[in-house]
Structures are given as structure tokens and as C-alpha cells.
């Protein structure tokens, strides 16, 4: 990594790379590739912490009354004798969701791949605003540290769910949590700022810095998805910021936005939160869909089936995502007529998702399928995401939602789309672009072991949640055995916990593979996957500035098995007389 960066960087800025200190080059870097890797390292840590929180939750549900292994290390306020307290359980549930959504999945998809891929895949030397990009990362880090600090304050961490419904979250007396809830809000406000600055950068870059010939309909779907996601981030995160400020003021300076006794409305929080929250979950899935498209086309050695429809489907999902927020509030006491309108929009959003699913299958149809590790994860994404999407139809129907709202049926849905969907896509993408990031390949054998163990353990963990949800098992409850109708489900809960423990353990294979390959992995050529993207036309890893000369783009992004060439791939910048395309006009400025 160091040697390549020291080489002459693109566009002739010889002096910069040589003179930069270690701190300027790797810590306070303005290079989008380094920043992407920084987000990757940060997010993987939070993925681990969020997963650990889940293990404690599952231990309590699977083996109630038994001490959590190593639990004796936890303070008495959390788990005396290693047995989680009900108050700590509520914090664990809250923090599992919070850390996974805000500090793991969102930065993994948007922070890592937005940063790493956008300039490379559009043929740009870096982002439009490299210094702003650095700020994006270095605001996210203290946000994460602050969030972790919440575990150590009096009263414990936030315990009102990642959805933080008021007035439970607004008034400390109701939850027993004071500072923790405030820290939660401040941390998210900081993270929100980081995301908004990042989105501004991504949008400006994609609009203004595409290489000549990279028209909108030659953009890879990963870039389309990241671009549309950035627009969602820009428009949705500020809503959360506003809501968080109002809730923070309710907690601290005595305002009454969400407090009925002062003239406020608890439902206002829900409307604001979900107006942000629903676009947020599309922020968490669209980039995953984008990278999966790139990888399935590559693994099938075929153009993406229905590229234009795929683009329109991304836009449709993003647009429809703005008018479905009320489906989280069907039973909230909101006007039932609104339930009707939100049901229609929610059912409709199944359609573009169906289009994408069938188009992925169409891409595989009559392909020459190469089951490299990224392809395995990408195909798994499609098959698991479909389950998550189909389970969503149940809750879209308002009458059925009466029964399954706030049960484990919802938890099953969430995890099939976020883990079965987003996380498998993340594994696919990390493995696929790892050689470009680090100049080495991850070990394919251990990659396959990790994949199959994860796939099996994931389903053992989350599929039964549909069934316990169908039996009425509520969410966020510390001890289901308090209810007679839930006691027969203890066996299933234990099975789920065992699945979860195996699932958590299997991820260490990925982490080990990730870390060890960094040092001893097989060296990667510029294009180890025989892919068409512009990033594969430069060394692994690319030098600062990416391209020696501005690339000229001649082809659509997925010209695999083209009759025009003998190879089964055709890089986007390859001029078809055999020479690699170079800028037609001298580089300006």
C-alpha cells in the first residue's frame, strides 16, 4: 500500500505524495481510498460490538437465568453474576439496533463503498471536495466514541429502542435513563452531520466529475445506487437531526414537543422519526443492491439483464420510500384512513423490488457462472433478500399488521433484509474490492467456509423468528416466560440462540481472513476478476490521483461476453482497435 502511494500520482502532482507525513497520508488523509478504508475499519469494529450486544440479548432469551460466559466481567449495574438485568436488556436491544444501523451497515455501504468506488468507477482523481471528505470521517469517529461512552454513565445507556419513542425517551423518570438518552441524540446528530457532508460530496462528484464518455446510462449500477442513496441521505438525515434536537430539548431545557402534558404530541416524534427512518432503510439496502448487480454481472459473465429498468427501479424505490413511512404506525392511534393510503404505497414498493430480483435472475440465466466468493455472497443476497421482501407483504397489509406488529415476525423481516440482504452484500463487496484496496486477495477457501457457515447459521437464527412471531411473541421483552402463551416457545428461542452463537463465531473467520490476507494474501493484479469497471484499469491499489491520464469511456458497464472481443469482458475505456483509451483532449487545469 505504501509503495504504490509513493509512486508518481496521476495528473502530475508529484510533490504532494512524497512530502506528506504518515499522519497526513494515513490518518488525516484526504484521499478517498484511504478514507474508504478508514470507514471500513471503524465499521467492522462496530459490527462486532453490535453483534456482541445481540449475543447478550440472545443468551438471555435462549438460556434465561444462566450466567453469560464472561458476564462476570460486566459491572453490577448491567449484569450482576453475569445475568443481564432488565434495564440493561432494554439498553442492549436499543444499542444493538443503533450500532448496527448507524455505525455498522450505513458506514459500511455508504462510507466505505461510496468513498472508495465513486471516483474510481467514474474516472475521477478523487472526490470533488477531498478535505470535506476527511471531515466526514473525522466527525463520525467522535460520534462513535460518544455513543460508546453512553454505556458508562449513570442511569445506563439509552433504553427506548433504536426508534426512541417519546415520551419514554423524552422524560428520564419514565425510563430511568437520563444522560444516556442525551448522549444517544448528540452522537446521532454528529453522525448525521458526517453523513450530510459525505452526501454533498458524493452528489457533486457523480454529477460533475464523470470522465468523458461516462454518460449517465454508462454508470455502473453500484454508482447509480450510491448516487440515489446520497440524495436520500441528504434529504432524510436532516429530518432526524431536527427531530433529535427537539427531543434533546424536551429532555434538557423543558420544551414540550412530544409531551402531551405541555401541549405536545407523542405521535409527532413517530411521524418525524419514520419520515427519516423509512428512507434510512432504503439507504441501507440500495447500495447493497448496486454492488450486487456489479458482482452478479461479473460472476455470470453477462450484461446485467434490463440495465435501464434496474436504474428506474432504484429511482422508484427511493421515491416510493418517501411516502410509506406511516406503515410503521398503523397501530399507533393515527387516523385509520391514513393506514389505507400508506398500505397502498407500501404494497406498491414491492413492485420495483420484484423487478430487480427477476432481473438478477435474468442476468444469471444462460450465463457462465463463476462461483467466486463475491458471487456466492451476491447470489445469497438475492435469495435471502427475497425472503425479507416477501415477509414484508404480510406487514404491509394493515389488518395482518394488527397481529404481527411489534412481534418477532417484524424482527425476522428486518434481519432478512438487513443481514440476509445488506450484510451478505457487504461481504460480497468487501471480498470483491479487497484486492483493489489492499493489493492482495482474500483467501478463497476460508471465504467459502465463512460463507456457507454464515448462510446456514443465519437461517437457523432468523427463519424461526417468523414462526414465533406468528405465535404472537412480542419484541423487546426481557423474559417471555412471564406469559403462558409464550412458554412453549422457549425451545425455539434456545434454538435461535444457538444459531446466533454459531453465526457470531463464524464471523471471526471473515475477520481473520481480512486481517491475515492484508499481510500474506496472494498479490493481486490490476484486474483479478476480469471486470469491466474503470477501477480495474489501474494498479491494485491505485496511486494517489487514480488515473495517469483522464480515461475516455466507450462502453456500457457490463459488456461481458461481447461478440466484439475475444475475451469475455470489455473494460469501459477500452478502445476497440486494441489500445487502451487515453484522453482525447489535453488535461485542462
Amino acid at each position, binding site marked *: 500500500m505504501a509503495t504504490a502511494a509513493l509512486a508518481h500520482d496521476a495528473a502530475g502532482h508529484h510533490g504532494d505524495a512524497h512530502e506528506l507525513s504518515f499522519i497526513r497520508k494515513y490518518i488525516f488523509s484526504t484521499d478517498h481510498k484511504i478514507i474508504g478504508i478508514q470507514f471500513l475499519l471503524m465499521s467492522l469494529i462496530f459490527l462486532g460490538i453490535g453483534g456482541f450486544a445481540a449475543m447478550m440479548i440472545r443468551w438471555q432469551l435462549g438460556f434465561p437465568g444462566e450466567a453469560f460466559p464472561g458476564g462476570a466481567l460486566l459491572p453490577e449495574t448491567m449484569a450482576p453474576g453475569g445475568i443481564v438485568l432488565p434495564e440493561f436488556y432494554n439498553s442492549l436491544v436499543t444499542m444493538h439496533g443503533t450500532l448496527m444501523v448507524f455505525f455498522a451497515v450505513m458506514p459500511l455501504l455508504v462510507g466505505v463503498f461510496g468513498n472508495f468506488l465513486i471516483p474510481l468507477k467514474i474516472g475521477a482523481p478523487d472526490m470533488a471536495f477531498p478535505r470535506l471528505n476527511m471531515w466526514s470521517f473525522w466527525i463520525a469517529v467522535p460520534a462513535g466514541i460518544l455513543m460508546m461512552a453512553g454505556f458508562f454513565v449513570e442511569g445506563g445507556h439509552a433504553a427506548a429502542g433504536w426508534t426512541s419513542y417519546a415520551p419514554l425517551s423524552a422524560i428520564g423518570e419514565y425510563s430511568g435513563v437520563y444522560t444516556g438518552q442525551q448522549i444517544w441524540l448528540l452522537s446521532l446528530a454528529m453522525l448525521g452531520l458526517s453523513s450530510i457532508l459525505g452526501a454533498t460530496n458524493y452528489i457533486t462528484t457523480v454529477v460533475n466529475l464523470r470522465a468523458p464518455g461516462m454518460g449517465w446510462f454508462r454508470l455502473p449500477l453500484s454508482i447509480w445506487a450510491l448516487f440515489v442513496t446520497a440524495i436520500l441521505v*441528504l434529504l432524510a438525515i436532516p429530518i432526524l437531526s431536527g427531530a433529535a434536537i427537539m427531543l434533546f430539548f424536551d429532555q434538557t431545557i423543558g420544551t414540550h414537543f412530544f409531551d402531551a402534558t405541555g401541549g405536545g404530541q407523542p405521535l409527532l416524534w413517530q411521524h418525524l422519526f419514520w419520515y427519516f427512518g423509512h428512507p434510512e432503510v432504503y439507504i441501507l439496502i440500495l447500495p447493497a443492491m448496486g454492488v450486487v448487480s456489479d458482482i452478479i454481472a461479473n460472476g455470470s459473465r453477462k450484461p446485467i439483464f434490463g440495465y435501464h429498468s434496474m436504474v428506474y427501479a432504484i429511482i422508484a424505490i427511493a421515491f416510493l420510500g418517501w411516502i410509506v413511512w406511516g406503515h410503521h404506525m398503523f397501530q399507533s392511534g393515527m387516523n385509520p384512513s391514513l393506514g389505507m393510503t400508506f398500505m397502498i404505497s407500501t404494497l406498491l414498493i414491492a413492485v420495483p423490488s420484484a423487478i430487480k430480483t427477476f432481473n438478477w435472475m435474468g442476468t444469471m440465466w444462460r450465463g457462465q457462472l463463476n462461483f467466486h466468493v463475491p458471487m456466492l455472497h451476491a447470489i445469497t443476497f438475492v435469495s435471502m433478500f427475497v425472503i425479507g421482501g416477501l415477509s414484508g407483504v404480510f406487514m404491509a397489509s394493515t389488518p395482518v399488521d394488527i397481529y404481527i406488529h411489534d412481534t418477532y415476525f417484524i424482527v425476522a423481516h428486518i434481519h432478512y433484509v438487513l443481514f440476509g440482504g445488506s450484510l451478505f452484500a457487504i461481504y460480497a463487496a468487501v471480498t470483491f474490492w479487497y484486492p483493489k484496496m489492499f493489493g492482495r486477495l482474500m483467501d478463497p477457501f476460508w471465504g467459502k467456509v465463512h460463507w456457507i457457515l454464515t448462510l446456514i447459521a443465519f437461517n437457523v437464527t432468523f427463519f424461526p423468528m417468523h414462526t414465533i412471531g406468528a405465535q404472537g411473541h412480542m419484541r423487546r421483552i426481557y423474559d417471555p416466560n412471564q406469559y403462558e402463551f409464550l412458554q412453549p416457545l422457549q425451545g425455539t428461542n434456545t434454538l435461535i440462540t444457538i444459531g446466533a452463537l454459531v453465526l457470531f463465531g463464524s464471523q471471526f473467520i471473515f475477520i481473520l481472513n481480512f486481517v491475515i490476507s492484508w499481510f500474506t494474501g496472494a498479490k493481486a493484479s490490476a484486474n483479478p476478476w476480469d471486470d469491466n469497471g474503470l477501477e480495474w484499469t489501474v494498479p491494485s491499489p491505485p496511486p494517489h490521483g487514480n488515473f495517469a491520464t483522464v480515461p475516455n469511456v466507450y462502453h456500457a458497464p457490463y459488456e461481458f461476453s461481447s461478440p466484439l472481443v475475444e475475451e469475455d469482458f470489455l473494460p469501459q475505456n477500452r478502445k476497440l482497435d486494441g489500445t487502451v483509451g487515453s484522453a482525447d483532449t489535453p488535461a485542462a487545469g
Partner: protein
Amino acid sequence: MAHAAVMTTPANRELGAGVYNEKLGMWVFLGSEVMFFTALIGSYIILRFANPGAFGAPGQVLNVPVTAVNTFLLICSSVTMVKAFAAAHDGEMQKMKYYLLATTIIGAAFVGVQVYEYTHLIHEGFLPSGIRPGSHLAELAEAGQLGLGVADPGVAGVYGSSFYTMTGFHGFHVTCGVICMSFVTIKAFRGGYTQADHRGIEVVGLYWHFVDLVWIILFTIVYLI
């Protein structure tokens, strides 16, 4: 004279937005600011429609005349901002410097008047949590002179909550604008801008006009209606 190359789109790129990066970036960022203020202002509208009696009649609690003058000041600062940018565009760098200075000073004055209004309101008993019991405003409320439709002024909490949050965050945005404007003005006086490249002035100007526009909306729906 034609725009210099740097104030148009980046060369040797596929056609994008047709404006230089910093300008596009500011427009995009302002999109996020629109959503932020939508959350605050939208909540105010919802709370007010749901509980109109909790909100005082226009002019009963808030000082409309002083704020009207303040609004006029902010609009003037947008005018001086436009004139500064026009001067830069025309190469009249001296004029540009003084118009920038004027914008900064007027902007700072706006913030100053806001701070004065806040201290006065708090003294009178109008707090983010509502009307302070035992204050002058509480007496007026009990005497039915504030135009509140609710018997218990304690229920008027949302009025104070939304007033201070909306105007406070607007004031915070103006303050950030004044700080940026100071940097731009200082840079201008040091000769940092030319007719060929005065991007910073245009970009900070966009932000300034946005903040002014938000204020006009706030003034109308909070003070006048």
C-alpha cells in the same frame, strides 16, 4: 467579459450540472438545510393546528415591530450581498470589499437584535418550556390578554418550545453565516478574490440568501400569522 474558466464547469469531464463544483456543492447542501428547517417548521405547523389555543395571538407575546425592522435589515444584507457579487463580476474590487463588509456588519446586527429580543422575552417570562409562573406574561395570560385559548398557561409549553427552537436554529445558521462572511471579507480585503475567480463570494452568497429566505418564512408564520 466572459466568465473565467474556473467559474464554469470542470473541463475535460462529461457534461454535469453546468456549474463549478463548489457552487453545485452548496446548492446540494442547501437541499439538506431545507429538509432540516422543514422538520422544525413542519412540526410547528402541526402542533399549532392541533392546539391553536396554546399559541398566543400575534403581537401579544412577541415584539412584531422590532422584529419587522430586523427582517428589513436582513433583507438589506442580501441586497448588499448581491451587490458585492455583482461588483466582483464587473471587476470593481473596491466596491466588492465594502459591500462584503456591509453584509457582515448588518448580519451581525441582526444576530444582536435577536439576542436582545431573547433576553427581553425571557425577562418577561417567555421560556422554551412555556410561560414562567409568576412572571409578567403569566399575569397577562391569566387575565386573558395574550390571546391564549387555554386556561392553563402551563399548557402553552409548545409555543415557547417551537418559537425558541425555530428562531434559535435560524439564528445559529445566521451566526455561522456571519463567521463565514467575516472570513470572506477579510480574504477580500487581502486581495484574495479576482474578477476571474470569486467563487467563495458566490457560494457564501447562496448560503446567505437561503438563510434570509428561511427568515422571511419564519417571520411570516411565527410573528404575523
